[in-house]
């Protein structure tokens, strides 16, 4: 077994939700020791959101939680209990990285803001990620990730021109912000090796998301063009769309990027006449007759399975792909080849699929070994072996409710 990239790196993970824990997961899957700190009294929102094993909610039954917490140790600790302070102090003193994604002010209330942590551990790398950032007039806005979709303009920019804005299923900034943040944390760790200095890293998930909208923001600031919903149309390509296929609710995406591909596309669908058809011969004419073109293409695609259309098009050098569902992703032969989903055995959920990073490192591949922890699963090991508490001290903390248990969890999720 080769050395894991982040072997020996220690992370005290006070974050929750999707954005913070994905950062520490990236480190954990490459060898870091990560301790997730949670309380039964205020469950991580991912533990209370589904999907749940057998559709039955439960503290340890959500695959949204498990997805972002592989390879981590999980402990339970009520940071609202004043007697938790010594535990938190030892965690911070132990850690190279302290992770925070709580609402603004929460860590300060617990005495765990950067200034406090730095006094305990001067070299600590501390990150804070929140929806709107730590300061500014809207920093107190308590919204879900889906509210960030709205602010980012994703609702306005997703859907059809003749209908209302839509709400994307995915809270998109949660799947943009962690990657920038992890890069910054890694950079800060390397800088510390050289300088011995710690660092404070602050992130607004909304601002990270705006980086993915850059061309459209420039198109407004430079040209005054406001983004509109275009369905599946592209400003510069045609045909470019999602077409119905054989089966129930099956679809294929096709994008013809140039004239050569257009000619091959016409041959694939058995309409060589379109190559010289005045309605479709050039990109300009296709754009003018795009409704009709899309309708005619749909009449051809509907007799084939989306996989068939994809194969025929790709074999002819035309970009096309199945509009994949969750089921398709899990069965996708390419993703299987890449081992994108890996089955790990979770104590309560049992064996289920976990996604892997989009990058493969040739010499130090990621190593998702253990499923996400049940709440407090590693209390015995972490409190005793890592933090050095005695059995008596641990027993006292249990009695005093410093270490929370299932009895402290809400009865209904």
């Amino acid at each position, binding site marked *: 077994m080769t050395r894991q990239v982040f072997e020996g790196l220690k992370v005290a993970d006070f974050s929750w939700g999707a954005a913070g824990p994905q950062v520490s997961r990236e480190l954990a899957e490459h060898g870091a020791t990560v301790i997730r700190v949670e309380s039964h009294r205020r469950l991580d929102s991912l533990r209370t959101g589904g999907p749940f094993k057998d559709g039955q909610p439960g503290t340890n039954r959500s695959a949204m939680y498990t997805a972002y917490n592989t390879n981590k140790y999980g402990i339970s600790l009520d940071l609202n209990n004043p007697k938790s302070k010594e535990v938190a102090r030892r965690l911070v003193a132990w850690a190279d990285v302290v992770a925070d994604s709580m609402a603004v002010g929460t860590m300060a209330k617990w005495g765990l803001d950067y200034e406090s942590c730095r006094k305990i551990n001067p070299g600590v790398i501390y990150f804070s990620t929140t929806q709107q950032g730590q300061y500014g007039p809207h920093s107190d806005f308590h919204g879900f990730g889906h509210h960030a979709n709205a602010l980012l303009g994703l609702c306005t920019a997703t859907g059809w021109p003749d209908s209302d804005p839509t709400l994307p*299923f995915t809270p998109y900034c949660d799947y943009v912000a962690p*990657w920038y943040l992890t890069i910054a944390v890694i950079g800060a760790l*390397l800088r510390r090796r050289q300088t011995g200095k710690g660092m404070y890293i602050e992130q607004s998930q909304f601002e990270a998301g705006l980086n993915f909208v850059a061309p459209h923001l420039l198109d407004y600031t430079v040209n005054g063009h406001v983004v509109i919903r275009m369905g599946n149309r592209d400003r510069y390509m045609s045909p470019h769309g999602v077409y119905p296929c054989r089966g129930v609710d099956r679809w294929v995406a096709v994008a013809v990027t140039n004239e050569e591909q257009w000619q091959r596309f016409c041959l694939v669908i058995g309409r060589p006449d379109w190559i010289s058809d005045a309605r479709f011969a050039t990109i300009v004419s296709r754009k003018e007759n795009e409704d009709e073109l899309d309708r005619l293409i749909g009449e051809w695609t509907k007799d084939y399975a989306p996989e068939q259309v994809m194969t025929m098009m790709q074999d002819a050098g035309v970009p096309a792909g*199945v509009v994949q569902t969750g089921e398709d992703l899990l069965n996708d032969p390419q993703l299987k080849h890449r081992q994108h*989903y890996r089955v790990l055995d979770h104590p309560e959920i049992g064996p289920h699929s976990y996604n892997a990073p989009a990058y493969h490192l040739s010499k130090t591949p990621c190593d998702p070994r253990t499923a996400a922890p049940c709440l407090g699963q590693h209390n015995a090991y972490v409190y005793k072996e890592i933090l050095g508490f005695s059995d008596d001290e641990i027993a006292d903390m249990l009695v005093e409710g410093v270490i929370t248990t299932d009895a402290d969890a809400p009865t209904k999720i």
Partner: protein
Amino acid sequence: MVTEHDSLLGGYRVLDLTDEKGHVCGKVLGDFGADVIKVERPGGDPSRNIGPFYKDIPHPEKSLLWFSTNTSKRGITLNIETLGGREIFRKLVETADFVLESFPPGYMDDLGLGYPELEKIKPGIIVTSITPFGQSGPYARYQSTDLVGCAMGGLVRILGELGRPPVRMSYDPQAYFQVGVHAALGSMVAHYHRVLTGEGQHVDVSMQEAVALSTMTAAEVYDLMKVNVIGTGQFFVSPRPEPYGLLFLRFVYPCKDGHVVIYYAGGASGLIQSSQALLDWANEEGMALELKGYDFRQWDGSTITQQELDQQYEAIIEFLMTKTKDELFEEAIKRGIMLAPCATTEEISRNPHLQARGFWEKVDHPELGETIVYPGAPVRMEETPWRIQCRAPLPGEHNEEVYEKELGFSREQMAIMKAQNII
């Protein structure tokens, strides 16, 4: 000028051979301080012809897609398909720490410039390959665009309206942004390993996988529930056992000048507080009075009828229609209501919170005689700030700087290489 002391990647050099699918990777590394050299084919990369364009003028020096994904890079032209070009490239590799490429799998190997060869020239080099589906596997040779990448990664199926085809985000090209930032992340993990051990490696990045990671729980929902998530427009739809049936929970609401997203429900503590605050506000203004006194603690998503919920929506919408997005949002922050406006790019550009945080970055474009405003830091650090080092390069803008000053070619030699279509 950034230095290794005031940036995360100062002092490290990146050779960026990518097309539009991979531009973002080099931008991320450059904005964190690396010295990124964009290596384009003579005449410039074809992606310079993708719009939108500055002032709507279609011109390879005016692509806003190019501008916004190639900041903090210098630019040279080099034809690596020529023998002379490859020789120069190898010289450059000796000075580099990262090579980024997005050619079809095997292309670099065929030129004798694959990872094993580059590693011999520069031990410890990190070569990051960005492709639609990865370097090997049944779809490795398949082509992709933003739409195809988003579809194959599962991001299209979960968007759109019930009863209509699934859609991609009109904020294109999200697949390219996703794979770009994941490629930068993979490169950074490899870089950490190199600093500790001296060992470089090959980083193989898949656009499809990068997109799949952005779909929240689309795969997990199927894995555990055996149902597929699909786009349901302005609603989230929750399936319930009979006799209750499907529940359409509205999230997008019309208001006076557009739409807002509200998480309006009860049951859980945060939602009770938020929904009550919204109702109180409406009641204060003499609206939604039929709901006055409604107990959101009793709200139960597993039994509430669609008819009852629709009546509540009707009363709430009637109130919302008297307010603008801005009025609603400002009050929502004060009152703790989970409401946010469906912003347009115009509204984002004047968002007071972003302005107060100094988010926007002004970037000089001397050739256009103006300054353009760009999105700013995706993450903030005082000691090593993220920053746009310079605007995107013009074709071959830094040929002299790199070939003449760094590699020591004479003007005459450069003229010959130009004539031979090497640079």
